């Protein structure tokens, strides 16, 4: 299709990978049957369908290579399932070869849509298999069969072939007529099909238009089996199900009595149960449920999470009403409160369940990074080993996705500029092979990710000079080393070509920081010249629903994610001191810097503001603490954070908007960015 969006391409890649995975396991299973010659038609058909789907899909995306190869593979498999060619080891080898190339193509397209591999040779090999095959007989092979044309008309070519195969084997044909309720027909039909498959083959399932009852649907199942009519009828003895034998024209007797060698089916019957139990052990059915995993679009989970969020909010409203009724001593208030509590517990379980579904091990991300490190190290001629720890740490899938770019950026910088070339490392007395470390760990409701390299480190003095040159700080400004490193995150700190002198940090680091802030996270740098650099990213485990502390400043309410709140205090004005122009209080023998949100938001000061005690919300991330001065604490509440959207994305200091139970929408403070910006200097935000 002409307009194939990136999203559509992603879906294609996902589905293609699934298909290839199934193909691979199905082919392996098929290969095991080469010697016995007993090929399971369902298995073969499943492989055919895999190649068929891949052909159709890749065609829509204009991937001629994948489409050509899967087309040729499909042709071979079609001939195989129609009995035109026979299965041997050479054929299996060619199929595996084709599969391997398809795998390379699909993975390649993931990196770049232009990626291709010459499929010519393997297509030729597949063609070679086909050239030996003979053609089908031309006559209508069903002419002699007393079978309803309406049944034959809906058989696909493959199903016709299966029908013939069953006849060749001397099996009897039956028509099983069944009528089911529309609501449950698939399970009912599934049950019958399972039973039939144990003693024969289901050739087709035709839904029938002439169902007499409303809300019900009739089916005509065409079955080939070694069983006789009586046995089949006994097998299918249940209400609403009828069995008819299909005989040859001119006789009223079912084919079961027209068989040339009556003794054979008996022998077959004893063989059948022996070959089937073996299958029952490994899954019981031939449906392709090898994996117990379901691939789900993250958007669907988002929708689900949103609904859970709305439910949580609705529950909040109900609890409020219940409490209100109790206050008015309403008769049913007690019961309502109880019922609401039960709802609350179940809702919490639901929320936890949905949340867990969204969690993925961070190894998904780390593995990607490992590939980048391998590739890049070769490209820049450096020797690097990557050490990964804590890959099993779990994180919300969306956060993992959004973390990919910033992480990639940091790692590229580490390899490109952090790690020295081997000769330089030797000269500095370091091991020739550079180390890059990726470490993840969970700390409470946060996940901490460290990216470490043992390269040349960042020279704080050079960073400082650069910042002065760029007019970002005054020459006389006194900064701690930590504050100097923070300069790197300022927009306009550096341009790519100049930065390499400063060991390369700074290339778009403001973008990295913004990306991480958008996830309500925080990034810090620690570095020592000659020893290396460590970047530490602290992120919340999930973003979707959070508990928040609702606060008031003047007449406006705001939410602060509870995960960042360490404690709340009431502070007398006298306890507030000013150090270096910054308000602080003493808190358990350490100094806590304060940030007056009313000033940040540029609200006009009130008359007696300086004399009244104030409320302080102590927020913390990583090992930093900050006291937010607010007018009032309004309590905790579950909120669903929604992004502010593109138009407002430039506004700093807010993580998003949250909907409250009373349908009011309030802004959620972005603690990470408030902290880092306030620790750097004055900050104002317009509300």
């Amino acid at each position, binding site marked *: *299709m*002409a*307009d194939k*969006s990136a999203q*559509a391409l992603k*879906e*294609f890649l*996902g*589905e293609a990978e699934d298909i290839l995975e199934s193909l691979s396991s199905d082919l392996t299973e098929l290969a095991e049957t080469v010697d016995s010659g007993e090929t399971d038609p369902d298995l073969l058909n499943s492989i055919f*369908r895999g190649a*068929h*789907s891949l*052909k*159709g*899909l890749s*065609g*829509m*995306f*204009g991937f001629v290579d994948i*489409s050509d190869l899967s*087309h040729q593979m*499909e*042709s071979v498999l*079609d001939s195989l399932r129609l009995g035109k060619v026979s299965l041997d080891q050479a054929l299996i080898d060619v199929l595996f070869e084709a599969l391997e190339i398809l795998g390379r193509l699909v993975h390649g397209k993931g990196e770049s849509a232009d990626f291709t591999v010459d499929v010519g040779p393997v297509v030729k090999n597949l063609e070679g298999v086909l050239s030996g095959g003979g053609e089908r007989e031309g006559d209508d092979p069903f002419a002699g069969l007393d079978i309803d044309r*309406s049944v034959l*008309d*809906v*058989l*696909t*070519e493959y*199903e016709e072939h299966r029908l013939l195969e069953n006849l060749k084997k001397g099996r009897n044909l039956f028509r099983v007529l069944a009528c089911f309720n*529309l609501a449950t*027909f*698939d399970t009912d*039909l599934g049950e019958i099909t399972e039973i039939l498959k144990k003693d024969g083959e289901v050739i*087709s*399932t*035709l*839904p*029938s*238009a*002439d169902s007499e009852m409303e*809300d019900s*649907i009739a089916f005509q199942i065409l079955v080939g089996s070694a069983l006789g009519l009586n046995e089949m009828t006994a097998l299918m003895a249940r209400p609403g199900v009828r069995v008819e034998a299909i005989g040859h024209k001119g006789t009223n007797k079912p084919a079961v009595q027209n068989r040339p060698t009556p003794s054979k089916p008996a022998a077959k019957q004893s063989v059948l149960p022996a070959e089937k139990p073996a299958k029952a052990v490994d899954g019981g059915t031939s*449906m392709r449920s090898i994996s117990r995993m379901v691939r789900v679009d993250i958007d669907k989970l988002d929708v689900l999470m949103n609904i859970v969020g709305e439910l949580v909010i609705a529950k909040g409203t109900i609890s409020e009403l219940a409490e209100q009724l109790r206050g008015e001593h309403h008769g049913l208030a007690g019961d309502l409160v109880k019922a609401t509590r039960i709802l609350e517990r179940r809702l919490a379980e639901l929320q936890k369940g949905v949340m867990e579904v969204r969690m993925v091990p961070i190894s998904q991300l780390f593995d990607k990074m490992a590939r980048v490190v391998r590739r890049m190290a070769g490209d820049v001629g450096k020797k690097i080993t990557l050490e990964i720890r804590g890959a099993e740490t779990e994180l919300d899938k969306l956060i993992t996705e959004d973390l990919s770019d910033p992480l990639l950026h940091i790692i590229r910088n580490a390899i490109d500029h952090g790690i020295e070339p081997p000769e330089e490392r030797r000269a500095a007395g370091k091991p020739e092979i550079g180390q890059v470390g990726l470490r993840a760990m969970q700390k409470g409701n946060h996940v901490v990710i460290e990216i470490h390299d043992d390269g040349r480190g960042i020279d704080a003095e050079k960073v400082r000079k650069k910042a002065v040159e760029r007019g970002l700080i005054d020459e006389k400004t006194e900064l701690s080393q930590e504050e100097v490193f923070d300069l790197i995150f300022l927009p306009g700190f550096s341009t790519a070509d100049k930065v390499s002198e400063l060991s390369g940090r700074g290339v778009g680091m403001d973008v990295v920081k913004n990306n991480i802030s958008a996830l309500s996270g925080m990034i810090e740098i620690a570095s020592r010249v000659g020893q290396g650099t460590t970047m530490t990213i602290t992120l919340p485990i999930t973003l979707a629903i959070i508990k928040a502390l609702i606060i008031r400043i003047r007449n406006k309410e705001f939410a602060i994610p509870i995960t960042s709140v360490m404690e709340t205090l009431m502070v007398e004005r006298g306890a507030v001191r000013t150090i270096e122009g910054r308000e602080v209080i003493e808190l358990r023998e350490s100094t806590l810097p304060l940030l007056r949100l009313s000033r940040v938001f540029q609200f006009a000061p009130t008359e007696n503001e300086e004399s009244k005690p104030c409320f302080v919300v102590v927020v913390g991330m990583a090992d930093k603490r900050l006291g937010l001065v607010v007018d009032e604490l309004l309590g905790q509440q579950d909120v669903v954070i929604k992004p502010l959207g593109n138009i407002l994305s430039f506004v700093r200091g807010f993580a998003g908007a949250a909907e409250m139970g009373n349908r009011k929408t309030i802004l959620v403070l972005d603690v990470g960015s408030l902290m880092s910006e306030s620790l750097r200097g004055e900050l104002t935000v317009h509300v």
Partner: protein
Amino acid sequence: MSNKILIAEDSPTMRAMICATLEAFGDFEIQEAPNGFEALRLLPREKFDLVITDINMPDINGLELVSFIKRNEQYKTIPLIIVSTEGSERDREKGLKLGADAYLVKPFAPEALQALVQKFLS
């Protein structure tokens, strides 16, 4: 009122693309069935104005679905488009014999699908 379309197709990507193609040029109410069973279940629930079906599906194949729809008093007037891959000409012929109103060969151009849909829904 927007037209109601039922899509029976087992590949989620293909389904999404058909939907996107349709949504790009008109306001349709689209119901998606990932297999023949689901299509059978959805049919009586709505008054569909058009059905688009794949042939190769697990459980009930597209031909069986065509036969069901075109032999059923209630549904037989619903226009039906078969979407199938090249190479299944024989199956496609059967589909047309069973009463399908048109077919499209994958991969198809969005315009081709749009033209067909317009033809049946005008």
